[in-house]
């Protein structure tokens, strides 16, 4: 049974790259383009890991992390935030909201997989 990962990013390019890498490694990947849509997906589907961007319309990544951690079926699901090189404080706020870890953009596919394996190994 493949592990299921939800990737949340308003950038199609980023979603594509994340999904492609993860699918290539045998994960099942679901996509959402903002926090609100992500909550919609999570309400219906159980995932093993959430990877979310920070800057998104409608609901940003930090708010999403808070909402997920606030309770419900994914309160203890690992969440990785995708952050850019300038995002030190973003990392901190993501972490404070309850994120499990982070991935720095731009990422090498190997790096993404190693971080994913670190928080959600097979």
């Amino acid at each position, binding site marked *: 049974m493949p592990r299921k990962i939800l990737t949340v990013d308003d950038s199609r390019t980023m979603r594509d790259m994340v999904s492609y890498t993860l699918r290539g490694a045998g994960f099942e990947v679901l996509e959402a383009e903002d926090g*609100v849509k992500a*909550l*919609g997906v999570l*309400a*219906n589907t159980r995932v093993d890991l959430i990877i979310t961007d920070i800057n998104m319309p*409608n*609901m940003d990544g930090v*708010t999403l992390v808070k909402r997920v951690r606030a309770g419900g079926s994914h309160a203890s699901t690992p969440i990785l935030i995708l952050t850019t090189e300038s995002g030190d404080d973003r990392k901190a706020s993501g972490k404070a909201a309850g994120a499990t870890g982070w991935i720095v953009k731009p990422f090498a596919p190997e790096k993404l997989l190693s971080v994913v394996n670190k928080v959600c190994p097979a």
Partner: protein
Amino acid sequence: MAEPQDIPNSGPDAAAAQARQFISFRVGDDEFAIDIMAVREIKGWTETTVLPNQQDYMLGVLNLRGTIVPIFDLRCRFGLGLTTATRSHVVIIVAIGGRLLGMLVDAVSDILTVNAADIRPVPDVDQPIDNAFLAGIIPVGDSMVVLLSLENLFANHGPANAAIAA
């Protein structure tokens, strides 16, 4: 069949709160207004297809360029009796919470630009229209225009409620 999520909207109204625009229209002898941001289209009345077993103010549905849109009689919604709609009556298509619906009114009057500070609260007096439907009073010259709360007007138009109540 997921409920629509409440989308947190930091919206344009935060910054532009000072001046807002409303569209005003007539039902009977009274002038009403709604936020112009909610209005999608204004069109003349055409016959609707009646939906079975609905509240009397629910007039049925229209085809709006391929989309099925429910139409409501505002006069009847206020409890003031059914409108005998003619071609000169007007349907205002509005978007509320991601859904489109049409309101049958007598005529569209004007576009008002109003400072938020000038909108008065609704006085707590006896009147024919349910207070919950009203969001404020806009003074225009000597008279006044009643600002409507679209959300409250159409919050519970569900036929399910109507059917169960029956």
